[in-house]
């Protein structure tokens, strides 16, 4: 589910067309003294309701993405034995009126009672579990803007350990007045379409969406003749242990995360053909991230191709790591390295091959997605296109 539309095909098409989804906010009044630029989902498909279960916008995105993931993966004899790890930061915040705090009991008695049931971070995972009749663990993951990537890594560990035959994992977050206000208060929003890694960047644009992956071992997929879209070859998670909102200025935590993921995947820096970056377009993040690439890829023979696709669909917070993992897979499957839109004057570095303009057409067997978040958390995922023997 993305501002490009419903489904992975719409997502891939939007990226291949270099279509920016960043526009003035229309789905609610942000209450600011300007209209923020965001990437919003304007047409949300209907879902069959379930009695006693209130779905927030975040929940709906998660369920719709999970339904597509499950459909693509196909039904196996043990599909329902799996679980869901769904990341979020916003969950059902958008459902709650700030006036709740003055007199909660009155708010509940005046119709707000069920609004708050979708507040907890576990609710999107719970919704996915209920709609897809999953019997395994359904957990919420909340690691700020690294959440989506972390959920994928944790789910991968669970299927490898045999704790579940299949896990649905990813992230979902909806635009909410709460978070727009929060990032505005931090002076982190660019009122215009953002320019990640540009010297003239002014901040981020918020977006919304969800991406969910069906994860299982290669052996399990082959046993049930399931299509293998990509192989998660390695991952790592680290923390800067530095500051609640600012990254380590030298990008040490992120560099360690990248090198650890390459070690787990058993690949050299030269094997990585593309990095889908975190690239928020905030002054601090982008510089620290470049420092991380300079350190982690210092032994490469050529600069590492990097782009930030937040320039297409904004920063989707808890969904970002998952949506950007989907970008990475779309990039590999379409042999297209997507650019950073509006990047004209990039941060100077000899370590990075900045992707600008139109998608670069080239074969891409192995690529990496990088995420970071408030609280200093970092996550890196390395994907590989399945080889001939793995493709069914």
């Amino acid at each position, binding site marked *: 589910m993305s501002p490009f539309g419903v489904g992975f095909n719409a997502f891939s098409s939007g990226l291949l067309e270099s279509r920016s989804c960043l526009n003035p906010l229309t789905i609610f009044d942000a*209450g*600011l*003294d300007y209209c923020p630029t965001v990437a919003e989902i304007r047409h949300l498909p209907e879902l069959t309701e379930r009695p006693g279960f209130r779905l927030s916008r975040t929940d709906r995105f998660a369920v719709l993405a999970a339904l597509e993931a499950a459909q693509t993966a196909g039904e196996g004899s043990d599909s329902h034995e799996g*679980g869901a790890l769904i990341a979020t*930061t916003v969950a059902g915040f958008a459902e*709650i009126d*700030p006036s*709740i*705090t*003055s007199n*909660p*009991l009155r708010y509940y008695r005046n119709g707000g*009672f069920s609004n*708050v049931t979708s*507040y*907890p*971070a*576990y609710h999107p*995972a*719970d919704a996915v*579990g*209920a709609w897809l009749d*999953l*019997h*395994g*663990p*359904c*957990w*919420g*993951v*909340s*690691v*700020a803007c690294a959440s989506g990537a*972390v959920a994928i890594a*944790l789910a991968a*560990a669970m299927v490898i*350990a045999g*704790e579940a035959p299949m896990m649905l994992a990813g992230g979902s977050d909806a635009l909410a*007045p*709460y978070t*727009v*206000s*929060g*990032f*505005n*208060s931090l*002076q982190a929003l660019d009122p215009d379409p953002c320019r990640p890694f540009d010297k003239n960047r002014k901040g981020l644009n918020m977006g919304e969406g969800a991406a969910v992956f069906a994860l299982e071992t290669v052996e399990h997929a082959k046993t049930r003749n399931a299509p293998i879209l990509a192989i998660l070859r390695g991952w790592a*998670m*680290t*923390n*800067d*242990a*530095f500051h*609640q*909102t600012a990254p380590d200025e030298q990008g040490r935590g992120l560099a*360690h995360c990248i090198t650890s993921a390459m070690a787990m995947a058993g690949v050299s820096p030269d094997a990585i053909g593309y990095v889908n970056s975190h690239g928020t377009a905030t002054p601090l993040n982008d510089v620290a991230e470049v420092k991380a690439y300079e350190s982690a890829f210092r032994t490469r023979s050529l600069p590492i191709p990097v782009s930030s696709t937040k320039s297409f669909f904004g920063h989707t917070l808890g969904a970002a790591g998952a949506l950007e993992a989907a970008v990475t897979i779309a990039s590999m499957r379409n042999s297209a390295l997507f650019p950073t839109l509006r990047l004209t004057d990039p941060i100077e570095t000899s370590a990075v091959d900045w992707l600008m303009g139109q998608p670069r057409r080239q074969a891409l067997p192995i690529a990496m997605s990088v995420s970071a978040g*408030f*609280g*200093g*958390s970092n996550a890196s995922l390395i994907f590989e296109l399945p080889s001939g023997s793995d493709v069914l």
Partner: protein
Amino acid sequence: MNPDQPSITGIGTVSPFGPLRGLIARKEVEPRPITAWPTEGLRRAFLVEPFRPADVVPGLKTRRLDRLSVWCLVAAGLAIQDAKLDLEKENRSRIAVVLGTGLGCIELTESFFQSIATNGYAKSDPIIFPEGLSNAPASHVARVFGLRGPNLTLSHKGVSGEGAVMQAASLLRTGQADTVIVLAGDTLTRTMYEWFEAAGVLSPACSGPAPLPVPFSQAGEGFVPGEGAAAVVMESGHKAAQRRAPVYAAFRSGHATSNPKAAVSVASKALGTSSRADVRLVIASANGSRAHDDTEQSIIREAFGDKARVVAPKTSLGEFDGSGLLRLITALSWSEPDTRSLALLLGTSTTGITAALSFDLPCRSTAA
């Protein structure tokens, strides 16, 4: 015990028993009247009494943090002390932090809503906003103690603490960390308490002189809410042995389900190759509410028969989502195994979620 088993070697808690290092001495605690917000008459809950964090963990700075962040910092500091973990000698890139919480930093989230209600969306408080994120407590623990390994926050209703223990064990077993600071907890706020009131799930003891709820009793009139946080240091049995660290309990296995029909099989799976007769202690999540306790009782009966010794620590801790770790610690504190034994931590919710975790308990005379 198997040297590969993730082992608990340090404990820190912030609970109605106060901030404590190590096991919790048995004493009676009563719900206390709520004074933090205006109430219509008497309202009670199992509350953490205010304390100065720096008095417990010297040098700790906690200004403008959510109470859950503060408690996690204090509990983590106490657990690290208790485990005699010398962080200067540890590779801190290999120390992870895993937090399980139902509602995260709800107190500062409410404050942020309040700042919006008062000043408007354009003038909300930039200091509060990032501190309301669910992962703020785990992040602060990483920052203060310099822990650069994986940093995770998970939420899974009433089994959030159980989920954190399971993920911590997974990080150790898959080699993603050598040591994990496992945290679990929740704070009680006005919006939560009044939601329980509106839902009609509270015990009459919350608002009057009625007796406290008795878990698994026929009365089952409702629960008393609670709050608190706990931290444990978890490391491989091999590493604990190398450090000569006493072990409180060793994690054997954990399973969770969202399907009510699979609850009994999850409890059985957690036992692995052991028989149900080997289980000396079942640590229940019963809280005094009829639907919840009936569900759990039927799982226990079917999985372990009528002879299992069952304890229900929520009689002293109250009901909150992230209570799993505190329930485990309370039960460890108050059981006195004179031989090695097997304990099962059970988390149940009326919506069908069940988690079951098994632990080997060493003979107390050889433990911490």
